[in-house]
């Protein structure tokens, strides 16, 4: 819309710049980290999978196999993200024996965003919030009965979420 007919491109760039700057400053706030003993095991973290740049490589590193699309994977993601820093994404599936769910953002610097282990008795459903650097296809992956199934949706991002 034509709020700024005089210099739209320049304006966008400048405002973007200032938004990124503020986000960067905001990071300094820091979280209150305690050193309380925890049982979460860092060794469980699949370092290699989180380094991959493509859907196929990430899935291979994480699960050792490739995936096929399925209409039994339900991916709920906004069409336009209100801010790339916080994009709510929910995944659910009616497939049987689900053991894992993963979320990939294909245009992010590293493709794999998050992976969840679903033990028996836990529903095949998860909601979380992700950062997206720019407009991208988001892929929901569900591991069911030893096979991988996906659903894909494009999410438009005009303010990138790399700022945090």
């Amino acid at each position, binding site marked *: 819309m034509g709020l700024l007919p005089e210099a739209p491109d320049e304006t966008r760039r400048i405002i973007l710049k200032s938004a990124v*700057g503020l*986000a*960067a*400053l905001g*990071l*300094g*706030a*820091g*979280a*209150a*980290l*305690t*050193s*309380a*003993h*925890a*049982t*979460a*095991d*860092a060794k*469980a*973290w*699949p370092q290699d999978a*989180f380094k991959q740049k493509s859907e196929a490589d990430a899935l291979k590193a994480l699960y050792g196999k490739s995936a096929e699309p399925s209409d039994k994977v339900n991916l709920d993601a906004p069409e336009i993200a209100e801010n790339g*820093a*916080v*994009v709510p994404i*929910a995944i659910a599936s009616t497939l049987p024996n689900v053991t894992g769910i993963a979320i990939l*953002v294909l245009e*992010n*610097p*590293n493709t*794999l*965003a*998050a*992976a*969840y*282990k*679903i*033990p028996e*008795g*836990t*529903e095949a*459903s*998860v*909601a*979380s*919030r*992700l*950062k*997206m*650097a720019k407009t991208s296809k988001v892929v929901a992956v569900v591991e069911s009965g030893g096979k991988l199934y996906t659903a894909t949706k494009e999410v438009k991002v005009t303010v990138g*979420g*790399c*700022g*945090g």
Partner: protein
Amino acid sequence: MASTIRVRAIASGDSTQVQSLISHPMDSGFVKDSKGQLIPPHHIEVVEFEHAGKIVFTCLWGPAVSKDPYVKFTFKGGKKGDDLKVSWVDNKGQSDSLVAKIQ
């Protein structure tokens, strides 16, 4: 110091819905600070939810998970008053844990 973990676990019927929010910067490693220096990645790697001696949910998170991360899931079992233990560890080895009561 206040816990970094907030949990809301509500039992309904034969299952329990869990929502959790953790205070953490989740620095991606791709952002520069005000002086133009890259802020090194600092993010939670693993979160575990434990009920009655059993891990009911595990999150494996990369730097693309939002600051102050949120997650919601549902597991079978759990009743009002049960303990639910949440623990996390990040890539710098910092960690926190909390035992919450299921409501």
